[in-house]
């Protein structure tokens, strides 16, 4: 390999190594949540554990038995906030996230701080069971 070509190859390899450790930013679309009335914020329980592959490359587990409160409505679906726990999505940064469910599928997440919706390319089936208060 000629010296110039070798230098270019080293430069490109270095660039690849440096960028390999950088996570993608979580995609965000501005969203307006219509909050659920406090009295009607139904609690539901996840019936089957689900592994969720985030578009950022990270993954999250939807634990069986975890409880979620209906927090409001988005054009994309119903939003559910975890009860007594913590749930986040992760990319370049970490964000508290609420599930957005439509037609029995997890279609994305609502980020309450950023007031944004982040879609999920690989939708996951979620089974909820209402919990009596």
């Amino acid at each position, binding site marked *: 390999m000629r010296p110039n070509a070798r230098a270019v190859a080293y430069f490109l390899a270095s660039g690849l190594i440096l960028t390999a450790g950088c996570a993608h930013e979580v995609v965000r679309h501005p969203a307006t949540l219509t909050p659920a009335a406090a009295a009607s914020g139904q609690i539901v329980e996840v019936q089957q554990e689900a592994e969720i592959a985030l578009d950022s490359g990270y993954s999250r587990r939807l634990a069986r038995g975890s409880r979620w409160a209906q927090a409001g409505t988005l054009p994309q679906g119903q939003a559910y906030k975890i009860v007594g*726990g913590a749930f986040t999505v992760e990319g370049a940064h970490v964000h508290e996230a609420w599930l957005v469910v439509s037609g029995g599928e997890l279609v994305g997440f609502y980020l*309450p701080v950023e007031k944004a919706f982040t879609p999920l390319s690989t939708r996951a089936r979620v089974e909820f069971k209402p919990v009596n208060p």
Partner: protein
Amino acid sequence: MNLVGRIAALVLLAGMMAGCATGPKYEEVRGGFPSLDADKGRIYFYRSSNPFGSAIQPSVMLNGEKVGDSRPGGFFFVDRPPGNQEVNLTTEVEKKLTFTLDPRQDQYVRMSVGLGLVVYRVYPELVDKKTGEEELKGLSYTGQTGTAK
């Protein structure tokens, strides 16, 4: 192991331990924490005693304000009005954590150590109350004794 090896191991161990937090343990002080005002929530920040990356002790920033330092084996807490919270650490690569805080809610932020591009880095994670309370056991309080900011 020969003598030089033993000395080197001791020096390495001393170096790793040098950065660990000292102070009263969680179990000793938790009963003395002030009660939480009805119009505030409490955020606990903690870091395990993992010696890896112990020399990296970034400042903990909450909504742009320094509230403490990330020290191995240490924890502290702050009380804040409800609303949006943003945590970041002054480390090699910025990784922000955003979450909401409700009135009378406890939130737990674990500061974990990972290997960055060049050196170890510390990043914040939000954990549930059960995990947070369990992992706080044995950690040293590095906040202001008897007061909540």
